[in-house]
């Protein structure tokens, strides 16, 4: 194998080694560490906002500002694709 391929393989091994080293300290699967905010959302979503689906109430009501940014990203992507494929006048 050539020189740059060996370098890429060493880099990939370093990244995988770092990831599996961090896997020793992560919390066990099934017991989350901090859940105070989500307990508030689960307990209050039906009385305050009258919504049965807690995930939709988080996306559109408690954190609606992030959804506004996501609508802007989708709009920009559609405009860019249309602008790339326009026939020129030359």
């Amino acid at each position, binding site marked *: 194998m050539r020189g740059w391929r060996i370098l890429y393989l060493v880099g990939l091994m370093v990244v995988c080694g770092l990831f599996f080293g961090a896997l020793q300290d992560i919390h066990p699967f099934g017991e989350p560490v901090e859940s105070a905010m989500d307990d508030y959302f689960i307990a209050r979503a039906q009385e305050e906002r*009258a919504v049965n689906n807690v995930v*939709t*109430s988080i996306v559109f009501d408690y954190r609606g500002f992030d959804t*506004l940014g996501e609508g802007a990203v989708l*709009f920009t*992507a559609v405009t860019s694709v249309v602008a*790339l494929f326009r026939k020129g006048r030359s």
Partner: protein
Amino acid sequence: MNPLSVVVRTICNVFAWFMIVFGSYVIVHGHLSPGGGFQGGAIVATFMVLLLVAHGGKRFLDWVREGLFSAAESIGLLIFLGAGLLGMSTTFFYNFLAKSGGLFGSPVPLGSNPGVLNSAGTVALMNLAVGIEVVAGLSFIIIYMFKGIRIELDEEDEGHGR
């Protein structure tokens, strides 16, 4: 692109309306069951892909009108912004329609219950607006990426026989 055979075209004509109805169900019942604006919009956008694949490129490009999709996308985003700005007296994106008895306001019994369709104030309105925007946006991407291939569309379609 050439159109496919008679069997595929017949099944496409029958099945496409079912996809629109199912996608609209997922969009409208966003506050009761898992789903919402983005997921339902992706389901309805595959209706355009099915039409493009089954009927061929030339017939598809003669049928579609782009002014409709452009207007729908802009109107969807404007309704979403308007529903956020109307509750500006308290804060930005305030849910001023919940439990008020008006358009989408009915209280919901606590605990597990079969859902009430009239509940959940501005969340239901925003679901509809985002659903319209995602349908128009994804259809636009598909139409323009197909137009960019720029193959010569022949005068006579060579399908798989008639």
